[in-house]
Structure formats: C-alpha cells, structure tokens
C-alpha cells in the first residue's frame, strides 16, 4: 500500500473499535428495551425474558462452531472433482 493513498475509515484501529462498541451499545439497548416494552407473545417460549436475543446469539454461535466441525469433514482440495 503506498503512503500517498488516502487513509480510509477502517484503516484507523480506533474506528474499528468504535464500530464494535456501537454494536455492543445497540445490543444493550435492544435488550434493555424489553423492560419498557410490553410485547405480546405468540408462543409460550417467547415469554422468557430476552428470548430472541439469547436465541439469536446462541443460534449463531452454534451455527459457526458446527460449521467449523463440518468443514473438517467436508472440505476437499479445489481440484477434487477434476479428473
């Protein structure tokens, strides 16, 4: 990368950190909103406090970790199908 090039927003590690902090803040806000918003529920499991937040988080962690294990089983070289 040459020095003359303009510095872009995420070249600065502080901005990356800021973006991550924004995500934390938004999550905290979305979670806290449940104290104030009386949401109706379609299903008994939804009554649990923060159900969607917890479900979304665990779903993604399970998804990624399971996919990682799957990859060990499924990944082959790029020319696997080529004769």
């Amino acid at each position, binding site marked *: 990368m040459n020095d003359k090039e303009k510095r872009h927003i995420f070249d600065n590690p502080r901005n990356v950190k800021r973006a991550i902090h924004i995500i934390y803040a938004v999550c905290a806000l979305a979670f806290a909103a449940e104290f104030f918003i009386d949401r109706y529920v379609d299903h008994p499991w939804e009554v649990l406090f923060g159900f969607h937040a917890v479900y979304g988080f665990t779903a993604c962690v399970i998804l990624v970790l399971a996919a990682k294990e799957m990859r060990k089983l*499924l990944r082959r070289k790029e020319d*696997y199908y080529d004769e």
Partner: protein
Amino acid sequence: MNSVAPFLVFYLGAALVALTRGRVRAAVLLAIPLVGAFNLFTIADAAIGTVAVFDYTLTYLRVDRLSLLFGYLFHLAAFIGVVYSLHLRDTSQHVTGTLYAGGALGAVFAGDLITLFVFWELLAVTSVFLILARRTERARAAAMRYLVIQVLSGVILLAGVLIRVHETGSIAFDFIGLDGLGSGLIFLAFGIKCAFPLLHNWLTDSYPEATPTGTVFLCAFTTKVAVYALARGFPGTEILIYIGAVMTMFPIFYAVIENDLRRVLGYSMINQLGFMVAGIGIGTELAINGAVSHAFNDVIFKALLFMSMGAVLFRTGRINGSELGGLYKSMPITTGFCIVGAASISAFPLFSGFVSKSMVMVAALEEGHPVVWLALLFASAGVFHHAGIKIPFFAFFAHDSGIRTREPPLNMLIAMGLAAAISVFNGSYPWVLYSLLPFPVDYAPYTVAHVLTQSQLLFFAALAFCMLKLTGLYPPELAGVNIDSEWSYRWLLPRAVKVFKAVFAPLDLGVRRAALGFVNHFIAAVFRRAGPDGVLARSPLAGGMVVWVLVLLALYLLLNFL
C-alpha cells in the same frame, strides 16, 4: 379484450434483439420489459387465452391474482437484469436472457400442464447459455450438468403429466395435491427446480459459474417459477412444511464455510426458498401471502446481492472470500448497495425481508408448528450471519487485500440502485405489495413487538459474529470445495462407472473371445469338410465313381437276396 400472451412480447423482442446492434439494441432491450408490463397492465382480470392443438385445448394465458403477481415480478426482474447487462457486447447472452425471461412468463401464465411442460423445458435450454457464456471449461462442464438436471426435471414432469391426464382426463393446471404416481412425479419435477434438499446441488453448482450478468437472470426465474408452480399445485401439502424447514436450515452451514461468495449466495437462496416452501406447505391465506410476497422480495434483494458480487467479479476477476477484502475503499457505492441487499435478506425493519418472511413464521405458529417455527427463527439468525454479514464483510471490509479498482459501469450501478430502492420501498411501505397478493392481507408487520424481537435477534447475531471474530473462533476463509450431494454424481458416479468397467471389461472380453473362438472353430471345421481340400469338395475321377456305384448296386442286389 387484450389477450396477448406476455411471453410473446419477449419472444418477438428477442428476435429484434438478434437483428439489431449498438444503441438500437439497447433501446429494444429496455423496451421489451416496459412494453410487456404495459401489455400485462391492459390484460383484463381473469383473461383466458386458448388455442386448439389436435384433441387438446391449450390455455397459454390464464390470468388471476397469483399469476399476475409473478407476471409483474418477472417483468421487473427482467428490466433490472437488462439494465445491469446493457454494457455487454454479447448477442448470445442478450438473446437468451430475453428468451429465458419470456419462458418464465410463459410458465406462470400457463393454464394447462402441457403448456407448462413446454415452457418448463424452454427455461432450461435458454438459461444454459447464460452459463456457457462464461466461456471457461469449468463453466462448460457446470452448464452441461445444469442442463442434464433441468431437462430431467422436465422429463419427469412430462411423465407425471401423462399419467395424470390418463387418470383424470384433464390437462388443467390447478390444485394437484399429492395423490398417486402422476402427482408424485409432478411434485418431484417441481422439487428439482425448487432445489429441494438433495436435489438442490445444481443451483450452487451452476449459478456461481455463470457470467456476472447471467447469474442475475438465473437467480430471478427458474426457482421462482417452481415456487409459483408449488403454490398453484400443492398448497397445504404438509410434507412441504418439513421440506421447507430443512431447506432453511442445512444451507446456512454450508454458506458459513463456503469461500466462493456467489456460491454463498446460492446456498442462501435455497435458505430463502425454504421459507417460501414452508409457507406453501402451511397453506393458510396468511402463509401463502407470506410465501408469495417473500418470493417477490427475494427476487429483488437476491438480484441486488448477486449484482454487487457480479460487480466485484467484473472489476477484480475474483470472487473468493479468501482473495477479497477492503474493497469499500475503491467501490463505496457498490458496498452501500450490497449492504442494503444484506439488510433486506436479513429482514431488518424498514427493509423488504421484514414484511414478508414474518408472515410465514407467524402462520407456522398459528397452525401449531412450534418446532418448525424455531427452525425458521434459527435460519433467520443464520441468514443474517452468512448473507447479511459474511458477504459484505469479506468482500468489502475484513483485511485489506490490496486490490484497488473502481466502481462498475454506470448501468450496473443504476440496476443496483433500482433494486435497492425497491427493497427499501417494499420494506418501508409494504401496502403496494400487499395489495397485489393473492388473498386480502390482514397482517401488520410494524408492531412494536415485531420490530423489537427481530432487532434483538439480529443485533445479537451480529454480536455473536463480533465475538467469534475477536476471539479467533470464527473459521477463516479457506480455498477448497465442500462436498455436497453433487458428490454422488461428480465423484461417485464417474468412479462407479470406472469400477464397473474394470470389473466387467475383462469378463466381457473373455465372453466375447470365447464366443469368437467357438465361431472360428466351427467355421474351421466346416471348412475342413467343405473347403477346397475338404472331404466333400474333392473331385474324384468319373471311373472311380462308376466303380463305387457298381459296388453300391451290387450291395443292394446282395441285400435283396438275403
């Protein structure tokens, strides 16, 4: 009353495209979907167009709310695809793209199963050129596999139709329902084109191999025609609920570990189709509305995502996550459009997925399928993870790959802008889309609870990505292929044929050698007796023969006296 079949506009238009060049062709290409849309607009509700062929009356035009919605959708998709590919100087892609869109229109307005079959096969043989147009050996091989599977789907459809017509005596394409062999075969044919689990691999195999512009056409039509056909023929078929749930689940695991970003989109496409299939399976008015409106939104935002990845491929020549990154610096507008597409597919509030996907999920709960609902919710978080975050992150952000390029041509940007605008419009103001749905809509997407729960789901999915990335648990993008059901016909079948040959070739050779030896032996034996030197071919002297005759006669005489 106007009853010009919508596909005719496209087929005649394709002929004009073939005959023109340059700016005139561009004008013709743009005019086709516009003229088509106007034609559709003037077609009266419930119009019917029929033509008699031999003993059958074929219904080439059947207009009702369901076919009309898909009709408008396909015109819109064709227009976006045309704008996106205006810079091309490739007659074959322009012509076949137009024919392909026309075929899709022919299929959704088909009122009988024979017409449906004809357009079903036309879809296959016209779209394959969009893959071949990449002009690489890989693309050629993928195109051939695509063609075989698509044509197979057509052949199965034909077999099912023939049996069904024999059973019922009617060729009408209305509710079919799973009952018996004929309808089962039709169901299977629809399932192949709709990428049912284990029948899905043609999609992720071929779409990433097509040209950047070709994929935009491909992603809009084939699978959505199948969704339409299922919604027409098999609404409320319970097995579809479970097929749909499986379709939403398994591709997201593949999408997380897939390196080719257009293949990631292929897997996420199966995931989105799963929501539609599940909705059709549930079969209530709400669920069908959800499935159909999600098909509408999916065509637009999936096209947008494929267009943004197409722009990356077009400019950089690369599409693997492991080779990309940092492109937001040189393609900021494309990045923005990609993020809009990502937000739409992830169903963020104010983006189009939000107003359609949830209908299917609410319907799943209302009809007493809580486990399916949990699966769909899991898939909703997962789709945000792999399509909403992974696609923009690895292409445009992540580590800087050092690639410096520029924005794609203006026509590509306009096409992406158009799709982005529609996605935001449908998400923020869904009432226009709702008014086009097959059943009256009694559903309010923007309740406080829905906005809150969906936001929680998505933000915490993002949080999970952040944490996994920061802790280094997130799997890196790696080159390679992940084996999927295509393994059966790309790895197993060729080897099985080889083994078969290895085992049976010697056996076959032996049998044939033995047979040949026997025949030769026989010929030699005959030759020995009847050949020029054979006993039967000797030429003894006439005198000798007379002696022998005398001996014989004497013998007779002797015997006579005994």
